[in-house]
């Protein structure tokens, strides 16, 4: 493997809406900007596969804008460590890359929150957003009977997207009560930015049963999910199905921020008005600062991109819009709070750590996440606590407290090169 060294004025990690907007904004200054992404694709999760199959006008507009800049786009570039100040080490198929920066913008997005319940590890139990992305890349869903459950706007947005690939939905079960969900969506429908999605969601709901105040109890099947049991607290339903798409909203990807030592606030990256974190010259935009969706991320990205490139007056012009999205972030968080039953679906036998097969019962015996981790290996497997740690925060109010390099699985060669670098 060759190792390569690069230097940029502004480096952005994550090529989703926030990262793309930040790159475009920063590039207006004429400085050297690099946009990194771990995947072979641009667009993050929400705009996945837009280069292959254009479908979102906003995504197409911003991708076109990006292509018109002189931003250096590095895909398949996975940040694994911050070996020195203002240097990051990334893995790329061709070899490790050492990237020097003056300003860094973290635009690492969010991931779905998965919580344990009996049967959650069966093949065919997926995240709704995950299944949407998988379907975009060809995963067969046509004619499949799918139950959707969990919480958040994702359930409806992802389902509407998956339906286009021919899936049949048996039920969409939202755990939040209808008297919270209905006002939220009514309010959302009034935002012009959200208007584009509404017709396809409404059309889907005309033929799919959408229940509120309903949550999953268990998934059953031999080697894959074959049926799902749901409840409203009074009665149960068991539905035979091919897949269960279930997640409980989103959690921010704060691992890079943690590795840099950025202060967190209630699990999100703490930022000031200029989207600067507690670490000088490190900015953060989009979901890691608060779950708000792609249009919110676009505004954040522009603010961070302008601020990181000293174009502060352009950033100020976006502030009013940002304030309005802050209110949306709060509304969404308040609507989709988890009911207590969701935290008690798993039994002692249910696995909490999927990578190391550690049951909830074994973890529960310990007083702290750290002790549980050291004794059971919960959180020490391949996902490094991303799945079980996030679940643990919900179940026990404690989970991943720190991250260690390599931040993602890396080849020994990449790390060896880092050690040798002066």
């Amino acid at each position, binding site marked *: 493997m060759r190792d390569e060294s690069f230097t940029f004025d502004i480096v952005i990690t994550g090529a989703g809406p926030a990262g793309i907007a930040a790159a475009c904004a920063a590039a207006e200054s004429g400085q050297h900007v690099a946009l990194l992404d*771990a*995947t*072979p694709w641009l667009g993050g*999760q929400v705009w996945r*596969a837009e280069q*292959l199959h254009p479908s979102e006008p906003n995504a197409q507009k911003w991708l076109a804008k990006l292509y018109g800049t002189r931003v250096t786009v590095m895909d398949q570039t996975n940040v694994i460590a911050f070996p020195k100040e203002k240097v990051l080490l990334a893995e790329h198929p061709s070899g490790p890359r050492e990237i020097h920066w003056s300003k860094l913008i973290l635009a690492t997005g969010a*991931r*779905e929150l*998965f919580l344990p319940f009996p049967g959650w*590890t*069966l*093949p*065919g*139990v*997926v*995240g709704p*957003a*995950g*299944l*949407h*992305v*998988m379907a975009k*890349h*060809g*995963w*067969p869903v046509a004619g499949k009977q799918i139950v959707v459950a969990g919480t958040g706007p994702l359930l409806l947005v992802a389902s509407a997207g998956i339906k286009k690939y021919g899936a049949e939905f048996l039920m969409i079960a939202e755990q939040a009560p209808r008297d919270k969900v209905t006002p939220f969506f009514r309010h959302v429908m009034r935002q012009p930015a959200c208007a584009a999605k509404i017709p396809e969601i409404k059309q889907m709901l005309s033929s799919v049963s959408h229940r509120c105040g309903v949550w999953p109890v268990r998934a059953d099947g031999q*080697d*894959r999910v074959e049926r799902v049991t749901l409840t409203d607290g009074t009665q149960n339903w068991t539905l035979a199905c091919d897949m269960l798409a279930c997640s409980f909203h989103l959690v921010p990807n704060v691992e890079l921020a943690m590795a840099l030592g950025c202060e967190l606030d209630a699990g999100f990256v703490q930022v000031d008005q200029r989207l600067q974190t507690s670490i000088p010259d490190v900015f953060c935009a989009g979901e890691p600062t608060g779950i708000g969706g792609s249009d919110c991320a676009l505004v954040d990205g522009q603010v961070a991109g302008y601020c990181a490139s000293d174009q502060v007056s352009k950033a100020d012009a976006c502030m009013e819009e940002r304030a309005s999205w802050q209110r949306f972030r709060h509304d969404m968080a308040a609507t989709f709070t988890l009911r207590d039953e969701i935290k008690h679906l798993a039994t002692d036998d249910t696995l909490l750590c*999927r*990578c*190391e*097969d550690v049951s909830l019962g074994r973890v529960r015996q310990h007083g702290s996440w750290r002790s549980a981790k050291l004794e059971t290996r919960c959180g020490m*497997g*391949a*996902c490094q606590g*991303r*799945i079980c740690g996030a679940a643990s925060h919900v179940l026990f109010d404690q989970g991943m407290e720190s991250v260690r390099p390599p931040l993602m*699985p890396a080849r020994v060669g990449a790390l060896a090169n880092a050690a040798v670098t002066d």
Partner: protein
Amino acid sequence: MNDSVELLVNGLPVSVPTGATVATAVAVAGVSRFRKSVFGQPRSPVCGMGVCMECRVTINGKMQSRSCQTICEPGMEVCTDA
């Protein structure tokens, strides 16, 4: 550019649309078990975005490769943890 890509999943030929991920190829091959967990449970992709690590298979001899993050190439040899 061709519309489809031919590759092998557990030795069996599979055809997928250009741009499809290796995870898709495994599913199209009818394989529902991507990997075996520590205690032998069957597992398959969950998050679709490279975080959960359940989609790991062997691609062209390289083990622990995340199939949901890998685009299919002609002639690829994919092996699941059977």
